[in-house]
């Protein structure tokens, strides 16, 4: 479904990712793991069209999407829920969700809204509240809900657990598992290794702009190298 081949991208002509390749198959949940600053967010930004692709190719459902604008990529059903949530603080929860279907899934807006309120009942209690006044966990739910409003084929979640309490992280991962169980492909980009490996079937470990390890989540969990790579021990 998503194919990244030899991706080189960065900021201001300086490459951060140096020839990265990865795949996500239909209905699959994969995890991309790595410490701060290894290029996880840069990878997401390149896939969703925010960053310029210097070389390599990104294909979605067989077609090259590198070079398309973010709205064009959204229109194809590749939805990126960004790090730091990037919700609209000056607008109500309902308006935030409605804008999720600005380009895609507009016809099913009412039905999808209901669906999102059943997944995230907390958002239903806050429909008319400004999104900026929500707690961190609620804002993350809103960001994911906004992404789901576009009826994604592939959902990229960039550090959904960032800044949340362990209890909330638990709750959030359970919700992500529930969304994924409905057949949606998810690319989970995380620092939270243990929980991500429980959720994903496969995982990539990113280090210094390249993939250091990859494999089945179950195998990686038991791999002593992971601890070493990840924690730099």
């Amino acid at each position, binding site marked *: 479904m998503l194919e990244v081949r030899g991706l080189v991208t960065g900021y201001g002509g300086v490459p951060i990712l140096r020839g990265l390749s990865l795949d996500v198959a239909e209905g699959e949940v994969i995890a991309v793991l790595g410490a701060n600053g290894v290029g996880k967010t840069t990878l997401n930004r390149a896939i*969703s*069209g*925010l960053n310029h692709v210097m070389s390599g190719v990104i294909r979605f459902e067989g077609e090259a999407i590198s070079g398309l*604008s*973010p*709205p064009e990529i*959204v*229109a194809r059903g590749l*939805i*990126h*829920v*960004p790090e730091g*949530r*990037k*919700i*609209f*603080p*000056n*607008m109500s929860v309902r*308006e935030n969700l*409605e*804008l*999720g279907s*600005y*380009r*895609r899934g*507009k016809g099913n807006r009412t039905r999808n809204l209901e669906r999102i309120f059943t997944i995230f009942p907390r958002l239903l209690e806050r429909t008319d509240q400004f999104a900026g006044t929500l707690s961190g966990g609620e804002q993350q739910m809103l960001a994911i809900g*906004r992404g789901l409003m*576009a009826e994604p084929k592939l959902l990229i979640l960039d550090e959904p657990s960032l800044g949340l309490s362990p209890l909330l992280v638990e709750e959030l991962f359970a919700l992500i598992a529930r969304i994924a169980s409905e057949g949606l492909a998810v690319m989970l980009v995380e620092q939270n290794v243990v929980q991500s490996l429980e959720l994903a079937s496969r995982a990539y470990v990113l280090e210094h702009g390249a993939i250091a390890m990859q494999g089945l989540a179950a195998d990686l969990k038991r791999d002593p190298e992971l601890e070493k790579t990840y924690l730099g021990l």
Partner: protein
Amino acid sequence: MLKLDIFLSALANGLMTGAVYALIALGLTLVYGVLHIINFAHGAMLTAAMFAVFICHAWLGIDPYLAVFILTPLFFGLGYAIQRLVISPASHGDDSNILLVTLGLSIIIENGLLMGFRSDTRSIDVPYGFSVIEIGNLFLSTPKVIAFVAAFVVAGLLGLLLVRTDTGKAIRAVAKERTGAALSGIDVEHIYAVTFGIGAACLAIAACLLMPTFLVNPRAGNAFVLVAFTIVVLGGMGSIGGALIGGLIIGVVESLSGLYFGESLGQIGIFLIFILVLLFRPTGLFGAKA
């Protein structure tokens, strides 16, 4: 002590002029709120719109109140094109460049008008230009009453657009969160251009409402926009409601200080308010904290 009638009529006049000020400030504040730039070409664009009304009337025989239906979409399109084809490509995404580009645009427009129309002052002659509506002892100029009502209708429609439509919601979304908007499938460049277009359309409407009672020369817009800047600061940068209330306040202040200090000193009150706002409430009446 002046008689109550005179005071009331000055008050009413101030409110009516203020409503048109508000309309001009509306475009300025909307562009600031969404694009985060001060559009220095706002005054020149207003002058251009006033000349367009003049041309419609003097050369084509179209009444200003009819011309509004032609000029509003025309100026929306012009504004859209200017943002999309001139300001955005020339600024390379740098806000300080945008300032210079709009400043350059204003110089080009103003001098283009000077070249085409000389520095003569022109006006249009409409049959209802001096007609009045009588309420008790108050005589209100009909074109000004129309302008007052129309300005509120436009502000209301703009409010509805921003709250009810997807495009309006996208405008508000882009104002606060560009990345989040792009990742929701909103074409940010398109929304910028739409916003700039709306600002230009507000000017076209204001020009149609002004021309039956005002004069135009190639610098006519500047006086209005100077006042509009004050309104935007008073109301709070980027606040639509603030622009409306601020416009009315400034209109009344100008009218009353004209009454008490003499006509030529009318604008002193405006700039006193401007300084006081900057000193004591720099975010304006309805402005968010910076």
